[in-house]
């Protein structure tokens, strides 16, 4: 059943509180593009809702700040919109409008973060989370700084790919630093007799680059920092007996090509 226009107006309050279901939200946003009065009303309601939000302020855990700032250093920002900044950029009902490429202050895509940004943010998050696990805090801090240095290197590149054991492997590599940071998520959990081992690979040669620690509860593995990256290396992962080996004994589950 289609709502009449007057009824759509009445949804402004529920819209500002994010209390509409998806279909109603879409319909209201389409209406909002054409209704100046609604726009003004929603603007005031949004500010009112924000006051409700600020009243609920609570100190976040201190580690959050470090993670967010570190992630920001390796996340590219969106350029400003240079075309007509109104929602009329895309004609209502056009494909662009339906895809939601024309967005307003209040309307936003459900997932705005690119894959690379997500992967990098995950790497950084993990890098910081590992603080204070086993080693002394100082050792951890030094390690995390080393990881952050790779992530922030001017030539840092990110390569990601699916593995034959499921999930995704991600490498951030810097030739300038000669280092990589490896992380993964969703890999099959190995029995304690086995381990994922990391390799620098080039034709006819494999150099051990470290062992991947078991995944945490989220299915992600803590980042592994490895030195010795050389031009022309790829990064591979194999399943090896616990403790690792000096040369791969199985077929890699993933090989990630690092650009020279």
């Amino acid at each position, binding site marked *: 059943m289609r709502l009449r226009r007057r009824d759509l107006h*009445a*949804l*402004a*309050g*529920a819209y*500002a*509180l*994010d*209390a*509409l*279901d*998806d279909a109603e939200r879409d319909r209201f946003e389409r209406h909002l593009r054409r209704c100046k009065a609604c726009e003004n009303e929603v*603007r*005031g*309601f*949004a*500010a*009112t*809702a*924000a*006051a*409700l*939000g*600020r*009243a*609920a*302020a*609570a*100190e*976040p*855990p201190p580690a*959050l*700040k470090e*993670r*967010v*700032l570190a*992630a*920001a*250093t390796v*996340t*590219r*920002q*969106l*350029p*400003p*919109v240079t075309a007509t*900044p109104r929602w009329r950029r895309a004609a209502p009902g056009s494909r662009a409008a339906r895809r939601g490429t024309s*967005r*307003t*202050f*209040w309307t*936003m895509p*459900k997932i*705005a*973060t690119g894959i690379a*940004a997500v992967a990098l*943010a995950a790497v950084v*998050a993990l890098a910081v989370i590992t603080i204070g696990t086993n080693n002394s805090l100082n050792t951890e801090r030094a390690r995390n700084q080393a990881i952050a240095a790779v992530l922030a290197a001017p030539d840092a590149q990110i390569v990601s790919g699916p593995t034959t054991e499921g999930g995704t492997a991600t490498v951030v590599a810097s030739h300038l630093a000669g280092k990589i940071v490896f992380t993964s998520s969703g890999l099959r959990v190995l029995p304690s007799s086995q381990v994922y081992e990391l390799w620098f690979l080039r034709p006819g040669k494999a150099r051990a680059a470290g062992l991947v620690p078991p995944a945490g509860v989220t299915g992600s593995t803590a980042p592994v920092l490895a030195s010795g990256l050389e031009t022309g290396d790829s990064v591979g992962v194999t399943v090896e007996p616990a403790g690792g080996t000096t040369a791969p004994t199985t077929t890699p589950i993933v090989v990630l090509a690092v650009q020279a």
Partner: protein
Amino acid sequence: MCAARSEQEPAERADAALDTLLTHVAKGDQGAFEALYDQLAASVYGVIRKVLRNPSQAEEVAQEVLLEVWRTASRFDPARGSAATWMLTIAHRRAIDRVRTEEAAAAREQRTAQVPTATDEVAESVEASMDAERLRRCLAGLTELQRESITLAYYGGYSYAQVAALLDTALGTIKTRIRDGLTRLRACLGVS
């Protein structure tokens, strides 16, 4: 009342300062981003935690939101509202997205059972700051149904249809009570 008026000016100045910070963030200024974090991370995290209740989930969503602020800072348009409103809008929306996508029917029933009267809850958690005190006064000026509808929707993360079911009230009534209540709240808070 006079006191309330004079409090407003520094608050507006503070808001303008945040707007400026965000425009610097859009140019890649990491120092500005850190300053913005110091000013608003507690609000962002607080509202998300309020809705999701689970602190570790809240931390995860807050991180996504704050990084999104960094990424999309260039899309902020001060003509449409303050930086604080923009960030809080994103934070609340993301928290609700998480609620809607993750909450299986069974989990929702369980959560429904936990929700006491929403108004008590707000009263407890609202900090003893000036802003919160003023909000409390303004909330007290609403009818009970307006207040409950707004707090259940905003803090409880319920859709207005769910609010209607919880309060055993007609859908259309909840819709208008939310709108009328927000209109009163907006006027009381002096929000432009």
